[in-house]
């Protein structure tokens, strides 16, 4: 059987149908082989270390093989593989404990608490955070900020994942994002203060 002629969807269907048999393994290996480069790229960018990336990529495919039966075809196979890869890489990055030493909190704006000013606009702190980011930052700054403070990824990892080419990589975007957020929050506070004073009169 010439596996080259099979589409990814056909390989998935056949590998699932023949799971547990040697032929099923052969089909699964062909399916995975077509995604080696994609997963290798992702793992390399996540870790910055080719040996660790190879070990992680192997784990990702082992998990994909173990759970192939549960893949229902409700999304593309590569999307399903992405969710496994993302979880594995995030776990590995977090477990390496390199985050805390590098995450910078200097000049990070403080979000208003869920009372006072926020009550005037009936908005939660979380929603305000998203609105501020959306209003103040450009697309790259939003991604860098979310990955750094939401996922606690290091600046080096973000630089690799997003393929940032500027000299200082993600750091430059964090610096400009903080500056813009500060300005935006000041404007927002001033607006809220005016609204509240207007309401009291």
């Amino acid at each position: 059987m010439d596996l080259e002629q099979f589409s990814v969807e056909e390989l998935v269907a056949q590998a699932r149908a023949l799971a547990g048999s040697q032929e099923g393994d052969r089909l699964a290996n062909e399916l995975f082989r077509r995604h080696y480069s994609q997963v290798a790229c992702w793992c390399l960018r996540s870790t910055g270390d080719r040996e660790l990336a190879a070990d992680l990529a192997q784990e990702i495919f082992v998990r994909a093989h173990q759970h192939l039966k549960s893949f229902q075809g409700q999304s593309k196979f590569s999307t399903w593989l992405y969710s496994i890869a993302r979880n594995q890489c995030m776990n590995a990055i977090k477990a390496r404990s390199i985050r805390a030493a590098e995450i910078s909190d200097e000049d990070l704006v403080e979000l208003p608490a869920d009372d006072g000013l926020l009550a005037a606009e009936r908005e939660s702190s979380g929603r305000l955070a998203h609105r501020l980011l959306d209003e103040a930052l450009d697309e790259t700054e939003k991604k860098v900020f979310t990955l750094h403070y939401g996922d606690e990824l290091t600046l080096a990892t973000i630089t690799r994942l997003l393929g940032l080419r500027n000299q200082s990589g993600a750091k430059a975007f964090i610096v400009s994002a903080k500056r813009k957020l500060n300005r935006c929050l000041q404007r927002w506070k001033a607006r809220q203060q005016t609204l509240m004073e207007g309401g009291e009169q």
Partner: protein
Amino acid sequence: MTSDGDKQRRQWKAALAATEDCLTVEELSRHAGGLVPDAAKSRTSSHLAGCVRCQTELAMLKEFELATPRSEELAAVSWIAAELKRRSNQIGHAAPESASSRPIPSRVSRLRKIFASRPLSSAALSLAAMLVAIAAGFYLTTAKEPVLVSDGSTGQTLLRSQGVVALAPKGDLAEGPTELRWQPVPGADHYSVKLMEVDRVELWQGLSKEPKLMLPAEVREKIVPGKTLLWQVTALDVNGQAVATSQVERFRIAIAETSH
């Protein structure tokens, strides 16, 4: 790190966490492919427009789907892909219950299977034999299997002034280890050892009064050729307080190469 800074970081982390309204990876994928059902289009678009978390997830998904190695990544990605190909029998034969429950087929039986799977003409076989001979010659003169180095640099940063020196297993091994060994630490009452997968998910944990610990049979079964595992030992005092920790050590059973 200031406590104010810490508070602000926690605030932002909470604000940027996914909520129950956030889109799943499948929904994001359908959005990227223009395949969102009409009934869900409005919800998907309006959520995405206001959610920085989902916008970032979508961007990451696209990065993954379109991933092609950049010029500076080409060599490393090729090496990783070659490694995955070399280890493919570990991937395809790892059963869900136990990675070692199925026998890994020998090289001879796999070769027989390959040649039995498709009839080949004698010309094709001759050509294949020539290519194999050339490749083998090239491999024997130039290639070297990457040696697994016990990598302290990828392990956790040691913050304690006193460390435990792990002795074995480390790096590439000819056969599966039966025990873990380390140097005794003065003042230690007992030791806690954990064995982990490469993503640091814990496989097993054990305690020992001695500077060594036997691996139970069910743990040894999980140590299959080609699979990298990590381990770390912590020395504890009589109160169970950690007094020293080792680096995270890596090891694996090397895959036996047959001579040509």
